[in-house]
């Protein structure tokens, strides 16, 4: 296969030396079938071993290699180098503090995910002898799409609200909470809807739809957030006519 030289402009940041992130260029002989991640690995292996970036599965499943490529959030293991011109800018995900080079701080994202209680909440544990909790294909269909999230955080990088409101729960966390709210086995809707009615949650979303545009797994977090708005309101209204916890 014929190789072609492309210039990769990479954001570099060494917390021990650099006062702020800077850019560094590398000439990379790319193969036609390369993904952007292949070029980053080439730079690390052959040109500059000090480059730091995250990656793992190389098949768009683990969600580790999310970065900004020419200004757009993308999974670098899925993004073909041939789709770009001769100059490719790679930067860490927007809207996240930068730990080193292309690696961003994940802690806040993890805190936000955890805050929506992303597990099946049951008032009473089901006894083993009662058997499996069966779910029909129709019931599964209601949340299946939202369970495809791989936590790549591209949606947080694309979201204009995340960029401006630090307390905003964000697309993936809300989509995850909504996924459990829509699960027929779950009984935690009231708890999550109370979270969703709080400051910096579903009603902070201005429906830019950017999260859904960049989602590599077609989860459509914007749909989840806006459906969650509706459900949070309905839950609030029904709270006046039913007892809390009453179903």
């Amino acid at each position, binding site marked *: 296969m014929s190789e072609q030289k492309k210039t990769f402009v990479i954001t570099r940041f060494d917390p021990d030396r650099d006062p702020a992130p800077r850019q560094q260029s590398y000439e990379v002989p790319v193969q036609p079938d390369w993904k952007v991640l292949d070029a980053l690995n080439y730079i690390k292996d052959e040109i500059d071993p000090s480059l730091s970036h995250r990656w793992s599965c190389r098949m768009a499943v683990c969600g580790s290699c999310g970065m900004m490529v020419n200004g757009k959030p993308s999974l670098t293991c899925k993004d073909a180098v041939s789709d770009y011109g001769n100059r490719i800018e790679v930067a860490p995900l927007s*809207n996240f503090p930068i730990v080193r080079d292309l690696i961003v701080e994940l802690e806040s994202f993890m805190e936000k995910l955890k805050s929506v209680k992303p597990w099946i909440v049951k008032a009473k544990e089901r006894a083993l002898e009662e058997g499996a909790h069966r779910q029909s294909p129709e019931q599964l269909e209601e949340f299946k799409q939202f369970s495809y999230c791989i936590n790549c955080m591209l949606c947080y990088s694309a979201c204009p609200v995340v960029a401006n409101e630090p307390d905003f729960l964000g697309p993936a966390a809300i989509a995850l909470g909504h996924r459990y709210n829509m699960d027929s086995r779950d009984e935690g809707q009231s708890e999550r809807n109370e979270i969703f009615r709080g400051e910096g949650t579903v009603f902070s979303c201005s429906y830019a739809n950017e999260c859904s545009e960049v989602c590599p797994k077609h989860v459509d977090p*914007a749909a989840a957030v806006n459906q969650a708005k509706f459900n949070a309101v309905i839950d609030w209204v029904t709270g006046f006519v039913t007892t809390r916890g009453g179903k």
Partner: protein
Amino acid sequence: MARPVHPQAMTPSRAGRTRTAAPQAASGWYTQPRMLKYLLFDATGIVYLLVGFIALRVVWALGSGPEAWQELMRQLANPLYVAFHAVALVSVVFVAVRFFSLFPKAQPAHIGPVKPPPAPLIMAGLYAAWLGVTAVVTLILAGGLF
């Protein structure tokens, strides 16, 4: 180069041991066509604010007698006002089309046992309602109904 975003964006509640660089937005992100469209969508709010002020002026003139009304009509015939209203019309159409395209997927999976109709039907209903209301308002303004 990158643009700054809120310095506390996606910052953990407890600072880690490693010094981090402030979050930033990649260069070019806010000039992507999709993002520009969204910014334009939000910016139409300014147009509606101004339309609101004009509407208040109209109501005020209506209550101030025929002379005030005639004077307002004369002012509204000014090409600048006409141009502004043309911009307002374009804004309304732009926002409505965007809103209608995003509305179907914001519907809940079901309300009780009732499921929402398919997306094309919801959109057709929205456009039909829009055209219907426009037709009725036009008829009223043209004196065709009352």
